[in-house]
């Protein structure tokens, strides 16, 4: 009898903690969304409803360009880092591969080093080699920090791989290429998509490494937003942020859909 009471207290405590953390996590975001409709030019209390900052957003060329840059960098770095990820994960499948330790070290070390150090080291590399910073240097940087993630995600998918399928296909006389495209690739696909989505999100989200590797005149959205906040003209930032949150939610929903479709198609 006594035990049940304590368990209930325990559960109540955890539920309370969970609810408080939810409030903590969502209040600022909710306020941001509500205040994107606030009719005020500076940070202030509620001054009335307006949608004019959303209209300003559409007319703002700098934002549109930053958006295009962000998507371009995210798309290209996702594509390239995912290809690196697929190749590396396939190479690492061989447990007796003599370069296993070296490759593992190079893949895992970037993950346990603060981001800012990658930014600093790439900034110095581009200075030392006198490469002009801009789109290309940002792309290089994004591929560099995405590789570790794509390799690990795709590798973890391959770890649970059922090799009896491959053996069965070989016994039936299938060619290696057929085995790869008909069996292995479809089974890897959910991992590849998860890796690509992760790389895409990381790329869109990155501020600090982009900050160190982009020159003047090449802004991604986070760089643009930070500059605008620093200059204090925040009118369009609320509405822009709200749209970006919407985009995130959209991504969450489609990932779930994509996953479901994939699982049902297998």
């Amino acid at each position, binding site marked *: 009898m006594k035990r049940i009471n304590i368990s209930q207290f325990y559960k109540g405590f955890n539920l309370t903690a*969970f609810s408080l*953390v939810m409030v903590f996590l969502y209040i600022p975001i909710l306020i941001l969304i509500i205040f994107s409709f606030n009719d005020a030019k500076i940070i202030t209390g509620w001054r009335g409803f307006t949608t004019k900052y959303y209209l300003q957003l559409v007319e703002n060329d700098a934002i549109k360009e930053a958006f295009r840059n962000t998507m371009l960098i995210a798309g290209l770095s996702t594509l390239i880092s995912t290809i690196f990820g697929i190749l590396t994960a396939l190479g690492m499948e*061989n447990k007796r591969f003599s370069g296993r330790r070296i490759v593992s070290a190079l893949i895992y070390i970037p993950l346990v080093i603060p981001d800012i150090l990658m930014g600093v080291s790439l900034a110095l590399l581009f200075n030392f080699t006198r490469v002009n910073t801009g789109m290309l240097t940002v792309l290089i940087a994004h591929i560099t920090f995405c590789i570790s993630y794509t390799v690990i995600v795709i590798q973890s998918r391959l770890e649970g791989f059922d090799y009896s399928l491959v053996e069965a296909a070989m016994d039936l006389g299938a060619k290696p290429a057929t085995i790869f495209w008909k069996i292995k690739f479809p089974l890897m696909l959910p991992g590849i998509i998860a890796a690509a989505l992760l790389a895409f999100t990381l790329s869109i*989200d990155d501020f600090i490494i982009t900050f160190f590797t982009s020159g003047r005149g090449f802004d991604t959205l986070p760089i643009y937003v930070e500059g605008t906040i620093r200059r204090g003209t925040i009118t369009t930032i609320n509405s822009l942020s709200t749209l970006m949150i919407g985009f995130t939610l959209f991504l969450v929903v489609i990932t779930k859909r994509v996953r479901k479709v994939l699982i049902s198609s297998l």
Partner: protein
Amino acid sequence: MNQGVRFTRDQNRKNLASWLLTTPALLWLLIFFLIPYLIVIIYSFLTPDIYDVNFEFSLDAYRQALGADYLKTFFLSFRLAVLTTLLCVLLGFPVAYYIARAKDKLKNTLLVFIIIPFWTNLIIRIFSWRIFLAYNGVLNDILIKAGVIGAPLEIMRTDLAVILVMVYVYLPYMILPLYSVLEKLDFTLLQAAMDLGANELKAFFRITLPLAAEGIFAGSLLVFIPALGAYLIPQLVGNQKSLYLGQVITYKIKNIPRNWPMASALSLILLFGVAVLLLLLFALYKRSKARRRV
């Protein structure tokens, strides 16, 4: 015998294939991850120039970086990382526990709620706190209208705001690894301990906590290390009187007069600190695992 030879030949072929497949990533990381650090090491021994570096050997950067000038910076960053990690464990544990013990159907939904902020753009999440905490912000507005306070609180641009937003941003990084160990935890062990007379508290400290150690380690790494090099959060919600390591490094690279040797030396000290920490944690983790087996 014959078969043995063919076996090794087959393995050689496989090994070569593995090298070929991993070479693109290997080369890429060599050029854009490893070599840049060599340049950082070289630059840390050079003399600064207003816009660039002079290729003259000097130890000034290290002398200054390890001197009294930067003591406060190192202390602030270390304190921030420790406090953020501790608060994330304290807040994250009950949350992860709650999700791990929820019904299977509910679990995924609860996890999505934790992941959504994690997927929302970092800079937006930081910015939303500025709206909330600013002098003329929403929190002060509500508190004044409710008559709780007479004058606005100055939370924005303090070290407290920095810690608050750090916890906010890094909490999901703690909850997810904690959840993944707690989810695998065998709760009948707790039941057994209590049947044998242990109370809830004792069962928690003797069973749940040791078994969750792996998740706490993983989560702490994911929070502590980035917190040491934090730039954006202190920059956007902190003040210019207490500068954190990430800010100092960034200013030395971005602001004119530049001091790249200084930025390099500070970066390498940070890297060294992280390496020492990782080795320590790893040793600790191994020991705790060995002890558990006894």
